């Protein structure tokens, strides 16, 4: 019915991207990634201990996954660029999710610093996926700067509040020609499904899966919800009316 998602020259067969923080163990995280048949996985470079024999998170990510290191902990573009370069040097590939946060209370991204880092890293040949507050004009600038996708938040990280930024993301989906991927805040499979019905290219989920009582089955539920939402988007949803259609219309007499 449609071609697979393509980002940075790679074909991606699963539109559920998964974050790796917050799991109760690496073996459990691995089970989740396998159950969800994850294709793209984001890892905070700050948590990667490449020198460790037993504690290296990268050893628990299935080999067929694209690893997307993220710059968690960066407070400005300089720190994000430094972390991205370290990630590349450590052999984690050339994908990078830029995360620049100056606000530890709400964890909302700094769009201007994110744009600066995107400009630098895209020029250096990174496949750049910036995490951002949904804003059309910044998204357009990120496209010009060479971003491979844009990742607006649904609601604050870890809040599980769902797609509260729906109207702004909708505008981005209509106007931005590169993949729009909702990242952060999705709390339930129905939230993910909604994003996909809206035409988002993918979603990224971490907390809602990691802290579920049964993360493996929650990951399966998210995967199926993403597929259902994508299919519904491709078919085209019937238009939704705000009110019921009155069975006794006020202008019915005109047809009598």
């Amino acid at each position, binding site marked *: 019915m449609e071609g697979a998602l393509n980002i940075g020259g790679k074909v991606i067969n699963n539109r559920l991207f998964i974050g790796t*923080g917050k*799991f109760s*163990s690496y073996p459990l995280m691995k089970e989740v990634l396998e159950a969800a048949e994850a294709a793209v996985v984001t890892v905070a*470079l*700050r948590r990667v*201990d490449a020198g460790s024999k037993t504690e290296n998170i990268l050893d628990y990510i299935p080999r067929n996954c694209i690893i997307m290191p993220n710059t968690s902990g960066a*407070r400005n573009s300089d720190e994000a660029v430094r972390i991205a370069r370290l990630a590349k040097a450590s052999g984690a590939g050339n994908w990078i999710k830029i995360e620049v946060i100056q606000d*530890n209370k709400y964890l909302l991204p700094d769009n201007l610093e994110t744009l600066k880092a995107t400009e630098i890293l895209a020029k250096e040949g990174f496949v750049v996926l910036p995490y951002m507050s949904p804003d059309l004009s910044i998204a357009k600038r990120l496209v010009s700067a060479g971003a491979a996708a844009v990742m607006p938040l649904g609601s604050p990280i870890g809040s599980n509040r769902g797609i509260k930024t729906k109207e702004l993301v909708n505008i981005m989906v209509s106007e931005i020609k590169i993949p729009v991927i909702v990242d952060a805040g999705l709390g339930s499979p129905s939230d993910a499904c909604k994003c996909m019905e809206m035409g988002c290219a993918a979603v990224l989920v971490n907390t809602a899966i*990691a*802290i579920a009582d049964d993360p493996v089955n929650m990951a399966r539920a998210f995967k199926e919800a993403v597929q259902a939402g994508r299919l519904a988007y491709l078919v085209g949803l019937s238009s939704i009316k705000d009110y019921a259609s009155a069975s006794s219309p006020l202008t019915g007499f005109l047809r009598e």
Partner: protein
Amino acid sequence: MKGNVPYLRKGMQEQKQLLELISPQAENYLEEMAQEARRLTLGNFGKVIQLYTPLYLSNYCENQCAYCGFNSKNEVPRKKLTLEEVEKEAAFISSTGLRHILILTGDSREMSPLSYIIDCLKVLRKYFSSLSAEIYALTESEYARIVSEGVDGLTIYQETYDEGVYDKVHVSGPKKDYLFRLNAPERALKSGMRNMNIGVLLGLNDWRREVFSLGLHAKYLQDKFPDAEIGVSIPRLRPHAGDFKIPFAVTNKNIVQIITALRIFLPRIGITLSTRESPEFRENLLPLGITRMSAGSSTRVGGRIAEYHEESDLPQFEVSDTRSVQEIKAMLAQKGYQPVLKDWI
């Protein structure tokens, strides 16, 4: 003034919320508070606990703090690690897998000057991803120096926010300057410190007064320095050398109320649990809001390396949880938590 009224009102509401959470009446709702604290902690931090270990560089001290084993009046053997000994300790700690270390010194600019601390930092930087310091209060430019040497975290406890109690328990020494210590976190944050950990020493004063001040202090720092990570510790007085009697007993139930109240009041702050508490109690507190704990602790200077450990050495305080890093990791795994040994670059 008129324009400030909504702001003042908001501040009052926040203060009232904290007061309610730590009130005697709230003791009737501890289970509900615990459930809410757990929900907030899971959403914000997940099922992970960050581990670190303290490294005592020196116990020379010019302060006479009534509650402390390193009190200058206590006749305990004094020791300062040489750089070779620092390297040995670092290599040992690093072999346990830990990548976060907290260095500590007594308050003596003569015996452990900033230049000595910086020399130690240069050695430690080779072994660890994150360096934190719990040392005497510095000036702003001194904090900038240690930040440039790779220190990303500072731990500095006010011990008590009550100026009268503070003056009484800090009998003499540089630490007697209440305001210089109170403003230390801000000086460090202005110098680019990423992580700031503040605390009170429970037992010195009525805990409700202290936790109220601690919560507001943490909130003030979080609001003023939004890019920093603010954390709190709530060490409880333990027996130590000397004859200090603990003036205000704090029960386990009180500790539960303190942790859950702080978590609900400030959902994003880090909360550290020290080895002063017993293994069993530490495990029970885990789900209530704890985000960091120490492991493989020794409060003796050079305590990890047997060859220069003397039986007569007295620690700063008694470690109640003496488990090794491996044992703590196994306990966390069994409780459904992932130990995070590295969380910075």
